[in-house]
């Protein structure tokens, strides 16, 4: 039954198919005869114009043969369910399209000249020539046209209506996605909307076929519109949920573990999409602190049990409100509301923020544009205030054009802030400066130049020191520098070959720095100002080592790839034991030391594992 319908549909569309074959043959011929430019033009036209056109043509003729001479009376009186009939026709006609794609694919694979042409096209016009554009879009166009062809017998009208509707829906979905994004939602998987739209057409069409009298055109159109509307609304609803809350349904495994900070024995991860996740060592579970997607967190802004964050009201207008909450997610309240017109902060974009050592004060930088004669200039303002809302003060920062300013440290002593001023992404000559701004005096001084970002972010808990890399272009070396923010003393801890100095970590008491250089693990003691080599081999790029939260133990991932051990050392870096790692991690491994246990996670996707340093027991945590 289905086979016969399949043959029937192919037979009825044999003309279009032959045309496609002819065009592809022409393409091959042009290619083989060495006419590169013509082949390029022809192929581009084939993909971008002919294929969608063919899809629409086949689709809009979907039910044409049934309309012709009222053959539907014959077909619908056969012992076959109408749903099955619809699906059989759909699949058969779709297969014609797919076969064309398949032939095209094989031609492209086996004619190297042709392949190269398309690779060039892919590179230069990634959006136009991506798989989505030239396979998925025609299929969706076909689906819409086929669904509509049920309603009316004039094929060319269906053809044009499908184009209109397809374009209209595309327009609506793009704008809708933009609308969501603009409201602050982190949009993910927006292609799903098109798929749901196509499915709406399918369901509406099948339902219309089953429930209507085929000869009553207006009744069909009315019914179809009704069903379509319902399904489209459902699609919008589902896709909105998917797009805006999709990350809620994704497991905690999929978070990015790069930005992490320890606090009171717990480990906090700041994921761009998921907000703040916390590993609870008692429950041995990973929980999410804030489920919203309309927040923006600065890395490592957790201090003294409080976290400041931005609530995004509108991305386009850049309305961000600065809020603060406790580390357990409670007590969230706004500090600055920039969306209100009468607010000082109206139309000023908050770009970075930081808490003081005791979290009693918060500082942040806003930017906005002002006109200076003909030009418009960006103005950076540094603000600081108490976290109860009182005592707001500000100071304009002198930031050169196209540069950005970021707050990077608020030392525990005195009343000064470390600010990083760096050139923007579009400037040619990269430069960066570390400045110390004195909040009492209102002065600022430059402490360092040509700092390599973003490796400024390795801070001790007190934030009294900064560590960063400085690149020595003449000798092709990177230097690790320690900067004392109180005394302004900077010491070059050591240097390594270009790109071979990467990971370092502070001990919990802020007295030592562990870093890796060229497969060696070194420890620097701040008090004794001593450098000591600990181990010969190590992973190069990741901090495959960490202290436990009490500083009593030091854990280190085993040196050689393939020999998966965890080495546990005491605070004097003497090896106490080796623990076998029974899990195969994908890619490099991140490790954190907590109270008597360690957490391991691969930088790629994958689960987080907890190992008890005493019992050597491994457990997956979610």
């Amino acid at each position, binding site marked *: 039954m289905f086979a016969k319908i399949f043959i029937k549909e192919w037979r009825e569309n044999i003309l279009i198919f032959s045309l496609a074959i002819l065009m592809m043959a022409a393409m091959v011929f042009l290619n083989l005869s060495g006419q590169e430019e013509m082949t390029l033009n022809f192929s581009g036209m084939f993909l971008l114009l002919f294929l969608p056109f063919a899809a629409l043509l086949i689709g809009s003729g979907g039910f044409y043969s049934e309309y012709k001479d009222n053959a539907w009376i*014959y077909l*619908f009186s056969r012992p076959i369910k109408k749903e099955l009939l619809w699906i059989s026709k759909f699949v058969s006609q779709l297969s014609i399209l797919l076969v064309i794609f398949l032939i095209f694919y094989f031609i492209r694979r086996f004619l190297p000249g042709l392949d190269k042409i398309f690779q060039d096209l892919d590179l230069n016009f990634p959006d136009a020539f991506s798989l989505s554009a030239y396979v998925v879009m025609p299929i969706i166009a076909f689906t819409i046209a086929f669904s509509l062809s049920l309603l009316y017998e004039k094929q060319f009208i269906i053809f044009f209506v499908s184009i209109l509707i397809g374009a209209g829906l595309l327009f609506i979905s793009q704008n809708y996605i933009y609308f969501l994004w603009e409201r602050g939602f982190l949009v993910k998987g927006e292609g799903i909307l098109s798929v749901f739209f196509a499915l709406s057409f399918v369901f509406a069409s099948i339902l219309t076929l089953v429930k*209507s*009298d085929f000869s009553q055109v207006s009744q069909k159109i009315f019914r179809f519109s009704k069903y379509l509307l319902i399904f489209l609304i459902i699609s919008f609803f589902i896709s909105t949920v998917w797009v805006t809350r999709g990350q809620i349904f994704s497991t905690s495994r999929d978070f990015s573990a790069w930005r992490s900070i320890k606090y009171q024995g717990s480990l906090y991860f700041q994921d761009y999409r998921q907000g703040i996740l916390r590993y609870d060592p008692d429950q041995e579970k990973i929980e999410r602190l804030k489920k919203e997607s309309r927040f923006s967190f600065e890395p490592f802004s957790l201090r003294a049990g409080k976290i400041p964050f931005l609530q995004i009201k509108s991305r386009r207008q850049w309305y961000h409100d600065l809020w603060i909450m406790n580390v357990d997610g409670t007590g969230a309240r706004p500090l600055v509301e920039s969306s209100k017109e009468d607010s000082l902060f109206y139309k000023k974009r908050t770009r970075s923020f930081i808490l003081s050592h005791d979290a009693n004060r918060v500082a942040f930088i806003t930017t906005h544009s002002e006109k200076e004669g003909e030009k418009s200039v960006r103005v950076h303002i540094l603000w600081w205030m108490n976290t109860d809302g009182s005592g707001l003060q500000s100071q304009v920062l002198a930031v050169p054009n196209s540069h950005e300013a970021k707050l990077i440290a608020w030392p525990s002593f005195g009343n000064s802030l470390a600010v990083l001023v760096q050139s923007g992404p579009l400037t040619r000559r990269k430069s960066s400066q570390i400045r110390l701004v004195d909040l009492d005096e209102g002065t600022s001084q430059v402490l360092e130049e040509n700092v390599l970002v973003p490796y400024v972010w390795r801070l001790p808990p007190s934030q009294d020191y900064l560590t960063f890399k400085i690149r020595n272009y003449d000798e092709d070396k990177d230097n690790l520098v320690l900067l004392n923010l109180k005394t302004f003393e900077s010491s070059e801890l050591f240097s390594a070959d270009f790109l071979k100095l990467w990971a370092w970590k502070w001990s919990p008491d802020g007295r030592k720095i562990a870093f890796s250089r060229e497969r060696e693990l070194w420890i620097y003691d701040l008090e004794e100002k001593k450098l000591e080599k600990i181990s010969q081999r190590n992973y190069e790029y990741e901090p495959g080592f960490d202290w436990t939260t009490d500083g009593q133990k030091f854990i280190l991932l085993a040196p050689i790839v393939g020999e998966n051990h965890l080495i546990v050392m005491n605070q004097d870096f003497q090896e106490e034991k080796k623990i076998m790692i029974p899990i195969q991690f994908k890619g490099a491994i991140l490790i954190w030391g907590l109270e008597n246990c360690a957490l391991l996670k691969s930088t790629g996707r994958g689960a987080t594992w907890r190992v008890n340093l005493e019992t050597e027991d491994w457990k997956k945590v979610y």
Partner: protein
Amino acid sequence: MGEILQANNLYKSFGRKQVLSDFNMSLEEGKVYGLLGKNGEGKTTLIRIIMGIIPGDKGKILYKGNDIKFNHPFYKKEVGYIPEESIFFGWMTINELMIFNSSFYPKWNAHKAKEFLDRFDLDGKFRIKNLSRGMKLKLGLIVALVAEPELLILDDPTSGMDVPTRHDFLKGIIREILDEGTTILFSSHLVHELEGIIDHLGILHNGKLILEENFELVKNNAKKIHLTFDGAVPDGIDIKGMLTKQTDGNKCDLGVYPWSEDVKKDLEALHPTKVNVESMTLEEIFIHFVS
């Protein structure tokens, strides 16, 4: 002999027009059922609903006692259908149509198909779009019968055909009855054709079956009464079973069904001078019922 097909409380309207209204019908197995009705009054609609081509608004159709629940298609494997116009896919040849059609019916008899084609003098290589109307009708018959249906439904397929074609067609139907004992539902407005072959008569009017009866019974009991009176015809004549009444001077013609002794008595009670009782042809029966 059971009921092979039943329509229970069927309703169907197109927009504001109520075509079928509380329609009930029952077909007995093995019988030839003639369905009469004025054009556009719902015969085709009813048949299309039975064949699952269009949905009914309310009500049920039972095939061999089972509710066919619109779109449940399996009963159609046992039903042959010849619509008003036998349309197929014009681009197919007759052979291709046979092959296409056979895939739907497990009981498709290819030999029988060949036999039919020979008998009707149709070449399998002809393209359907090139066939004359008469040939298409014959093809429609073949398509319906080769699947060895238990029920054959004809929706006035012979209207507009020339006499030889109609005769060939009817012969084919009659052969089918002879050989297979197929139940037949024959909707037609060519009354003469029906008259010779139906067992059972149904008349569809105003959305309902106003008559559903054994044909012989109907023929025996449907009468034309010609009354002559001395003087004017009395007003308000209303006899039991009266279908129509026409008065002209001192004469009055009545159509009556069913005729009985009681009716005769009622008529005599009107004191006419002359009473003339005549039987009706099917055509007259139809006319009288739908007036």
